[in-house]
């Protein structure tokens, strides 16, 4: 009765989950206080090992003679999709760990707990990405989320961080409940928790005699997962959590947790429930449009950089949902590409946000960025690149992500969705421009927002001369090497694969769901 275990398939989880438990054990056993950098270095080593095993899995899965495989009685499915998203989650954890020391030292985050929780959460994410059973899926989701709740509240001395943790926890718990109810109903309708059996049952018309139950199951699963990926109208927790939680944790949440949440959505809906796509596609389409538009519009009126990036991450979630909506192999790989690309943009952006703030968490007014281009030109340049990529400008990866997603929508003939999303992208571009304007075009201490500064009568005043070689009294932003490294890597990836997207598109295109074949 004991199922066979392909340990190689579980290598990332072993490195991440097992490694974090070992770290915790050692941390509690050893009486002497470890130096602050030790847990961090250990964490980086473990994520690197996990990344190595993910790469190895990718090679194995892409080998045509071997292909995708499942293990532990078919509850874990290692296909291109799983490996790709595992990679995204692991990279998110890795880069977050690399730039975390800044927060750990300055804001006094507990180093050991940070590493352990991050690794644990990443282990959950990897499990989620490769889950092939509703129960394993839930297991991964909970491991991922519970660790993330604590991560959000890790900056204990600040009330904002505690608030973030509590909000995230309460709403996340609700979401988990929704998900569980949904999973139960799907089990009732399809007679199995195994995803391939569910897919087979649906294809054979299992839903026809319990249609109400099936639809309710879809709806509840969607609601639960929409909470996790912060789709409107289930997004209310996002700005508060992004504002309150420590920056490295937020970066990981935006990049890794979001990717894992979408892993569940995509595997369940684009994969398992593809036979009943007519039932869930309209719901996803509506949510996608609302998410894109609301995320962009709310970003326009927010006056805080963290909240602004939170709303932008909501908008991006909407775009990824557009990929899901087209319900096919193309849409799935488009969503994957978007997740992979967005991970770098988010990680880099939050690394910048971290060095710009005095504290690890807490609000950060837009004015903090006034004239940054003069004080720290390289930091401003990197951030600008990441922001323009998020706006989807050509020759950045952000463009290709939008291109693929919109292409998937167009290919499935959902033109209205493509058109409305693109209009949302323009609104979002304004949001990013607000920050770029701040960095390049606003003198510190000058008037507020670009568009609010329409003073009549200024007319022809030549400010290009008056401000010649003015020196900013504020010192340049101190950028530690670790943070500079992360921003540089993220910007380089964004630009390089923006100019030469073929490998990226191929990677995402090869990352297929085993259910969809290919």
């Amino acid at each position, binding site marked *: 009765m004991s199922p066979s275990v392909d340990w190689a398939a579980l290598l990332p989880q072993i490195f991440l989950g097992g490694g974090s438990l070992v770290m915790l054990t050692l941390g509690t056993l050893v009486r002497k206080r470890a130096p602050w950098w030790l847990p961090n270095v250990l964490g980086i080593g473990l994520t690197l090992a996990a990344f190595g095993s993910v790469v190895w899995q990718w090679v194995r899965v892409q080998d045509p003679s071997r292909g995708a495989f499942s293990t532990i009685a078919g509850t874990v499915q290692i296909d291109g999709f799983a490996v790709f998203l595992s990679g995204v989650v692991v990279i998110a954890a890795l880069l977050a760990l690399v730039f975390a020391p800044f927060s750990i030292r300055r804001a006094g985050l507990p180093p050991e707990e940070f590493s352990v929780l991050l690794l644990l959460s990443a282990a959950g994410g990897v499990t989620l990405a490769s889950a092939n059973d509703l129960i394993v899926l839930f297991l991964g989701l909970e491991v991922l989320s519970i660790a993330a709740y604590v991560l959000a509240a890790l900056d204990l001395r600040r009330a904002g961080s505690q608030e973030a943790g509590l909000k995230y926890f309460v709403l996340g718990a609700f979401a988990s409940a929704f998900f569980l109810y949904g999973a139960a109903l799907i089990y009732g309708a399809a007679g199995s928790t195994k995803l391939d059996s569910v897919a087979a049952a649906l294809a054979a018309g299992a839903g026809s005699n319990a249609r109400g139950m099936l639809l309710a199951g879809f709806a509840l699963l969607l609601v639960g997962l929409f909470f996790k990926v912060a789709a409107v109208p289930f997004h209310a927790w996002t700005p508060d959590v992004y504002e309150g939680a420590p920056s490295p944790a937020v970066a990981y949440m935006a990049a890794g947790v979001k990717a894992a949440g979408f892993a569940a959505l995509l595997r369940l809906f684009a994969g398992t429930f593809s036979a009943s796509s007519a039932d869930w596609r309209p719901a996803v389409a509506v949510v996608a449009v609302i998410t894109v538009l609301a995320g962009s519009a709310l970003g326009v009126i927010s006056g805080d950089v963290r909240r602004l990036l939170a709303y932008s991450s909501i908008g991006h979630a909407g775009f990824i949902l557009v990929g899901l909506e087209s319900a096919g192999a193309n849409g799935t790989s488009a969503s994957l590409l978007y997740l992979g690309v967005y991970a770098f943009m988010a990680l880099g952006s939050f690394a910048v946000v971290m060095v710009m703030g005095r504290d690890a968490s807490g609000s950060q007014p837009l004015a903090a960025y006034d004239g940054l281009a003069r004080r720290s030109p390289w930091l401003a340049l990197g951030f600008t690149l990441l922001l*323009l990529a998020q706006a989807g*400008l*050509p*020759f950045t990866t952000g*463009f290709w992500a*939008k*291109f693929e997603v*919109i*292409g998937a929508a*167009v*290919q499935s003939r959902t*033109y209205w969705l*493509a*058109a409305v999303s*693109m*209009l949302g*992208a*323009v609104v979002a*571009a*304004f949001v990013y*421009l607000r920050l770029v*304007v701040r960095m*390049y*075009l*606003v003198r510190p201490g000058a008037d507020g927002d*670009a*568009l609010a*500064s*329409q*003073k009549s009568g*200024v*007319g*022809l*005043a*030549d*400010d*290009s*001369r008056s*401000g*010649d*070689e003015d020196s900013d009294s504020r010192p340049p932003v101190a950028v530690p090497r670790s943070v500079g490294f992360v921003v540089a890597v993220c910007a380089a990836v964004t630009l390089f694969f923006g100019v030469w*997207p*073929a490998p990226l*598109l*191929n990677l995402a*295109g090869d990352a297929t769901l085993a259910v969809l074949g290919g």
Partner: protein
Amino acid sequence: MDVVLAAASTPDFPAVLVAVVLTPLVGAVVLAVLPRRSSMLQPVAALFMLAAAALVAWVVVDYTAGAGGFAYLIDQSWVSRIGFSWKLGVDGISLFMLALTALLFPLATLAASPSRDRKSYFVWLLILEFGCLGVFLALDLLLFFLFFEVVLVPMYFLIGQWGHGNARRSAVKFFLFTMFGSALMLVGVLATAFLHSAAAGVPLTFDLVTIAESQVISASAARWAFLAFALGFAVKVPLAGLHTWLPDAHTDAPTAGSVILAGVLLKLGTYGFVRFGLYLFPEASRFFAPLMLTFGVVGIVYGAAVAAMQRDLKRLIAYSSVAHLGFIVLGIFALNVEGLSGGLLQMVNHGITTGALFLLVGWLYERRHTREISELGGLARPAPIMAAVFLLVTLASVGLPGLNGFVGEFLVLLGAFSSHRWWAVAATVGVILAAVYLLWAFGRVFWGRATGENAKLPDLSWRERLVVAPLLALILFLGIYPRPVLDRMEPSVEHLVQHLEEHAPSGADSARPSVGQASP
């Protein structure tokens, strides 16, 4: 369509177009590694632009019109998975756009130098040139879109960082307007490519020639796709109604920015209409021609009327651009050889004359720190050469026979008259209005008694004379002897009109007889 597929010219130097596009980009990289305060920044930037110009000049001279197909084709697969390729080529339509771009950029660079952040200024200018050249050369829908969109970033920074007045607001407005326009264009690009691949049963491709020559997309879908493209171009042109970003951006941009904006960037829209409107969607172009013509005429009259009311000299010229671009749109959507060649010629002319006008206004502003027409006056006495140059350019702009503006305008009206008579009649009113407001403004600025600071205005320096001289030479040359340009243009235009007639006969949906085909 073997006529098109066979490249018209023997490529001695097949990669010349790649070199043209990449030269400014290399220049930008070289400039980026120079020290911030180096005195070599401006010369190096100009050097790279002149190198690109030299390459373009070689192409212009070497180009043999042939059957009007694309020459110097380069087709290198970029992302094979989605059929996206780096495909460049030039024909009689894009040739002179290319030349205009290559000419105006070095002039604008040499004309003025900013007082701060010179390095990033020149880097942005070079990147801007890279984008503009790319737009005119791209023969792949997606590549075109990439270039079309990437132009926004350098222009945004040029306006915002080195502009005057409310530069930030103008920059953001420019960025958002144009991005709004091109947002739906991406949907159009994708829809066109997917529909083509589905209808023709071939793998996905974004190749312009393949898609345009096959014409397999259903008429109704093509109309929607045309509209998606047209919105992007219409904002860029800009057509009346979508033009509100233009006066702000032109007025607040630095001199070089205004020159490039008026001279090159607006042409991206009109060029787009020709290449990706008419060629790609002939039937839809014919269908929407009356609408576009109406926009054109409204632009002519409205631009002229508003320009006449401006108190700011630069704003006046900006609004005159709206009117001139209306003319170009009128010529293009006349859909016959005369109208199209006139429109194309007028694109070049407008680039030259308006570029020169913005240069002159920029220099005036450097001297007087004001552009209010009421504060200027009598400048002809202290600065006779400037006045003479300004007069010549103004006359060219209003279309005086013997100068370049006349030929284009005449051809446009001829073309429009033969296919859409009443629109042409309405447009003629605009010609008269243009003469009124431009000459009126000239008179107020340069004639009369010079008082106060106006009396002490220094004349054009040698450097400024050198910069404006090529433009003046072209104004005269194109006015007296436009033949070499028209000769190179005509086969491609005829080919395009033939393509239009083939896929959307002119008599099919309108009762009005067309004589556009009569005489080449």
